[in-house]
């Protein structure tokens, strides 16, 4: 359902994403993990068509991403929670969904029914009339997630869906994504929350400095995801700063 081959994005001579390849079948949930600046969001942008790769090919839902003639069809079939959330400051939470429904070909009645359900499930009912620039970060993230789900996409690309969201809703989102995957929706998400990723993902890809350092199904992991992550991705020793925590003069 999602496949990429030798995918590279370089800025000048520096490759932010360096010849990565993977294939994900329909209905899989892939956790794409790595430290800040490893190339997670850049990869997600390339997979969702927001950024052109320097080289390599990407196929999503049988369509060539970045192929002009497939572009509109692809956009209708994917749902994206982008890094910056992609909200309009002057629209309320509810208006974002009402705006998007007709653009994805939903009738007004259908848009309203789905909007009400999504707002209820994501705990956004109380703030539905709040303008995006007055929303908390969590509310903004949930609004963007609702926009990604509204048109019932076949593939979901989610950039850090659990970060900044309160635990109850985070758990609800996890459950929701699990159910979607059971119904055949393919989910590709980035996260720093390893326990959440471990409970949700069917596939785990670890990335460091733009290169994939691990790619397998979750049950093929030789140890827990946290142990794998700290072993393969991040191992930094703490530099003690003598002035920090010392008695203040």
């Amino acid at each position, binding site marked *: 359902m999602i496949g990429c081959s030798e995918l590279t994005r370089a800025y000048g001579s520096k490759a932010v994403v360096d010849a990565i390849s993977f294939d994900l079948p329909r209905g899989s949930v892939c956790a794409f993990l790595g430290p800040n600046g490893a190339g997670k969001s850049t990869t997600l*942008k*390339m997979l*969702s*068509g*927001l*950024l*052109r790769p320097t080289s390599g090919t990407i196929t999503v839902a049988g369509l060539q991403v*970045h192929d*002009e003639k497939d*572009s*509109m*069809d692809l*956009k*209708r079939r994917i749902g*994206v929670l*982008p890094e*910056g*959330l*992609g*909200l*309009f*400051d*002057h*629209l*309320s939470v509810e*208006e974002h969904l*009402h*705006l*998007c429904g*007709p*653009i*994805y070909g939903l009738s*007004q009645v259908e848009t309203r029914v789905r909007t009400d359900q999504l707002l209820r499930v994501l705990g956004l009912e109380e703030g539905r*009339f*709040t*303008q995006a620039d*007055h929303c908390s970060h969590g509310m903004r993230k949930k609004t963007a997630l609702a*926009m990604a789900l509204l048109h019932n996409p076949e593939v979901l690309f989610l950039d850090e869906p659990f970060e900044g969201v309160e635990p109850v809703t985070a758990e609800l989102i996890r459950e929701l994504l699990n159910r979607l995957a059971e119904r055949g929706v393919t989910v590709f998400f980035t996260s720093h929350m390893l326990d959440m990723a471990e409970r949700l993902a069917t596939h785990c890809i670890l990335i460091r400095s733009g290169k994939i350092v691990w790619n397998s199904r979750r049950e093929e992991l030789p140890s827990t995801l946290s142990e794998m992550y700290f072993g393969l991705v991040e191992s930094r020793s703490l530099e003690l700063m003598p002035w920090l925590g010392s008695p203040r003069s």
Partner: protein
Amino acid sequence: MSKLAGNHFLVFALLLFAMAPRSAGFLLMLAGLVIFFPLSLDPLRRLPKERLLLFPFTTSERIRIRILGFLFSPVPWVILGVPIWAGRRYLRVSWMLLLVAVAANAMSILWLRDIDQARRWRLLPTGSGPLGGLVVKNLREMFHLLDPYAGLALALAATVYRVTSPKPDPEAVLGLSLLVALTLSSAAQRLFALDSKHGLTRYALMPMAGWRVLLAKDTAFLLVLLMLVLPLNPCAGLAAGLVLLAFGHGPSILDPQPQTPWCFVSGARGWSGWVQVLAMFAAGIATFRWSPVILIPCLAGYLGSLFYFGARLEGRWRG
């Protein structure tokens, strides 16, 4: 100040003042507002509020920072400088400027305090269909700029002249219509100014052709312009609007610049602004002098620009 120098209406008012000071009176008053309104807003508003509160300042230090911020703003110096430079009989101007500054800040504070801002915008009809919602959103964004309000003040004054004058001069009405269009010309060069980069990402994700996104922007722009010139010369106004947009698509898409809400728009620098404004005047005058048929080439030029820059917009979305 450098941003304001990009506002076509302000530049035009200053040029007119240089050539015919007496006839530039009303425009200069509006131009004065152009400069004064955003300038008189609290200079500390640009600092993150939380950061300012977290810094370990004492109350007296906070007061000193506020006074310093106030002194570094050009507004008090302008208010004090007018009577000193122009004589005591201009003291009334200073009082008026002070009033404008207080009003600007009061409006800004009242606006920011109202959390449920969406409520007031619900007065606008909800758009239907894929384009309708975007048009309404774009209309809202336009009403967050000061340019349409300057146009409204000018259009109201021109309408009063047209209604009350026993024999209004059609050429004067034409000139006023084009001046109203001029107040919006900078906004036509910054169609995506209030969308922010996050809004631009959303457009890129939508299954919608670039020209349709642009059309939604243009429809909102033309609706505002036609509303303002309807009692004056709508035909010339429409021709002017189409030309403004045809020339405005380029800078809007190729050189997008962020814009602060509740300020006047800073248009594109260099020749593109001059060409846009000259073409707008030419189209408006030609429609009036020759025939409304001139609207046809204006529309053709507009459509050419719409589809060409729509394709360029899609190119930008693909990274």
